[in-house]
């Protein structure tokens, strides 16, 4: 009972293809489109926006000589990094070491398959969409573990172990908090979660506030954002990378193309985190005046900006404190939230 035709159907419809051929071509073209949209966004975010934002927090200017506003840095950084020597240190565990940089970005990209980006841009809308998104996102930590043990580097190993610890500790609150939204929405299907949020909550002076779950349950939203920060490994939870402690954490030994892939993966992951948050709590692509896709982009960039802000202004937690907050704080709070939501929904409905 899809509310809207998903992207592959639209494409195959446009091309006039039907049956299996239509599914395959539509699926491939759609996946290609979405992957490229995300890669372009990441390209802006990684070498350019991140520098500009960090610089703005520190009263600096950052890149402004190479092209307008330094935008050509995106090209130069990408080409340079790709053209560098790929160092394969002695003693690395070869297949794992080579696979890890693929796993990290592609798992994050996979998550975007079920995200409704507005204007009918959605690759698939399965019944278990939300579960799929979380599952895909958490494969990235497998990649991090692979980098860690395969690198034959102690700093990488510590970084990877930290990543595992953080993933286990924060994935549960993240999913449990999301479950409270599912109770409201009554479905795991992404498009339905979005649709439920379109109804008006209340009207103040002519402005209608929709039932975005961030307004309905701001507490859950806060929990989700915090868990999400930990999930994507940004301050105050950037312990897997922790530059001043363990050099560059799990990515210490990676250079050239592999480094680009890992770097890319991290940014896509941030965007995926933002996308899930936007879908669950901020009405997905909903918003006035502008088309849905623009709103969706604004929302995930807002989350990106938030991570960069946190990175510039908040100290890093120590690993034990980090886990303590995860297990003793977030977990308890997220379950409390779930139970309360269930009771409220049960009583009202």
């Amino acid at each position, binding site marked *: 009972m899809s509310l809207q035709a998903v992207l592959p159907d639209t494409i195959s419809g446009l091309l006039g293809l039907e049956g299996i051929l239509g599914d395959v071509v539509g699926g491939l073209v759609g996946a290609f489109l979405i992957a490229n949209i995300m890669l372009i966004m990441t390209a802006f975010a990684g070498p350019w926006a991140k520098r500009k934002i*960090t610089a703005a*927090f*520190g*009263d*600096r200017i950052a890149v402004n000589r190479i092209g307008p506003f330094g935008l050509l840095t995106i090209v130069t950084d990408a080409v340079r990094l790709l053209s560098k020597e790929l160092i394969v240190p002695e003693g690395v565990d070869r297949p794992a070491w080579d696979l890890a940089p693929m796993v990290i970005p592609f798992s994050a990209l996979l998550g975007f398959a079920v995200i409704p980006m507005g204007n009918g841009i959605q690759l698939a809308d399965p019944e278990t969409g939300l579960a799929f998104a979380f599952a895909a996102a958490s494969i990235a930590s497998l990649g991090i573990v692979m980098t860690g043990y395969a690198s034959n580097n*102690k*700093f990488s190993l*510590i970084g990877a172990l930290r990543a595992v610890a953080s993933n286990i500790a924060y994935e549960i609150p993240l999913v449990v908090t999301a479950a409270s939204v599912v109770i409201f929405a009554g479905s795991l299907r992404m498009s339905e979660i979005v649709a439920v949020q379109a109804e008006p909550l209340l009207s103040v002076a002519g402005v209608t506030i929709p039932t975005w779950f961030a307004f309905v349950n701001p507490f859950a939203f806060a929990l989700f954002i915090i868990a999400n920060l930990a999930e994507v490994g940004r*301050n*105050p939870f*950037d312990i897997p990378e*922790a*530059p*001043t*402690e*363990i*050099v560059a954490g799990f990515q210490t030994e990676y250079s050239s193309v592999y480094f680009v892939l890992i770097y890319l993966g991290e940014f896509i992951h941030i965007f995926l985190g933002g996308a899930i948050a936007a879908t669950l709590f901020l009405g997905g692509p909903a918003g006035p005046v502008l088309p849905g896709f623009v709103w969706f982009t604004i929302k995930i960039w807002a989350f990106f900006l938030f991570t960069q802000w946190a*990175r*510039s*202004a*908040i*100290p*890093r*937690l*120590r*690993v*034990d*404190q980090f886990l303590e907050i995860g297990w003793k704080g977030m977990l308890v709070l997220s379950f409390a939230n779930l139970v309360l939501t269930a009771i409220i929904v049960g009583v009202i409905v």
Partner: protein
Amino acid sequence: MSLEEQQSDDPAELESGVSRGDELADLLGDLVVGREEHLNAPGLVIRPDEVQDALFKLRDEAGFDHLSCVTAQEYEDRYESIYHLTKFDDRTDEVSVVVPTSKDNPVSQSAEPVFRTADWHEREAYDLVGIQYEDHPDLRRILLPDTWQGHPLGLDYDQDRPQIATLREHANPLEEDHRAGDSNTMYINIGPHHPATHGVLHVETVVDGEQVVDLDSDIGYLHRCEEQMCQQGTYRHQIMPYPDRWDYISAGLLNEWAYARTAEDLADIEVPEYAQIIRTMGAELCRIASHMIALGTFALDVYGDFTAIFMYAMRDREIVQNILEDLTGQRMMFNYFRLGGVVWDLPEPREEFFEKIRDFIDELPQALEEYHDMITSNEILQARTVGTGVLPPEVAKSYGATGPVARGSGIDYDLRRDDSYGYYDELDWDVVVEDGCDNFSRLLVRMREVEESAKIIQQCVDLLEDWPEDERNIQANVPRTLKPEEDTEIYRAVEGAKGELGIYIRADGTDKPARFKIRSPCFSNLQTLPEMSEGEYIPDMIASLGSLDIVLGEVDR
């Protein structure tokens, strides 16, 4: 005091009343085999196999609880170690314990059981001069590579002989030691190239999971032979540029003052009051610049990247550097002090210069407020720093920790007040002490010291502004060549940015010092790192290292 009464029938009293040296010699009795007179303190000559007895007595019975420095040197006929002792409660009460050893068997008893700080100091003496210390827990080279041949500050060292340095993978010293049954330790090298070591420090760390179980700082990656350089320079001009490069975090004037004070006392030069005020003002500006970096890099260590606080600290520091550049002509390596004063007067137009300083001082409280908002009142930072890296005052004293590190452990010790020099005793300011003993206290001490420094600068500017124009005497009359008398020895210290920065000079009648020894505060402070970090987490170790605020240029010299 009962000691003095016992001394009243001592023959030495006839000359100048009861001298401190006689009192202490009496206390030590037979242990003293000779006497020397240093310009700063009486010298007691002790036999090399009785060092511990003598030091124990001086520490426990006469209260000398601060082993400031160990100087080693080679004479034509003997080696000599000098232990410069003083008290944390009374800095002006000093004594030098002189331990001569023979040329062919330079073995002397170690002072390590008495003062923990002697560990590194004696290793340095062994490394550079070649005196062996019996009973020392770990006597190996400290500044030079393990495979170095010869002792470079010895008299017959040939600088042209080839040397070999190794690039070794270090083995885990605890590998075989499965203390807790199935515990498994891992050895990691933190440094010498690591983003958090503030230069080229090498911390050999053994971790059990995330916890540090054993830690050894390996230094010497920036050993630039500062002592040799100073021994090759003439007193009057050639030595002064080097102090700038010891503690290079813009503490230049503070370091220069250490040399200026020592050499001026050695050659008996009186510095005009006007010059003293300029010195005081410049030195405190340097202290602010230095503490700003300490703050910025500490934030870097705890926050993990070149973030806002680091940038803000840099911004404020840039202003200080501009003021100092106006005053001295250089941004970092000032070379502004001269023996007997400073090299030139304040820049013209003076009003503009004062205005610049005033603007800075006026805006400083606001800037500090911002730092307090962003750093000290941040709960995560408090969770990270309060109660971590604990350094109890007794341990700090035993390691000879000074400066903000000691004051963060509740030790009320500041040479500017306790052994006053310059213009400090005429001004109104406070010694900042925090008794939390942890990383947070050390951070707070630095931030509050910036306020105190601003107060001092404010007063100096007021004084300088009203100074009559015809009395602006920036330099005393100093002979063109300084040749202090042979065998005069002096040890003097000032309060550098990191703590007690002392210099020992022995003159040999020429215009160059025969022995020039630098007592670096960071060298002693860094020794406390294992005490603070063992059993803690890696991030806390990094934070502790940041809160010690070491400068490798000064640690290694």
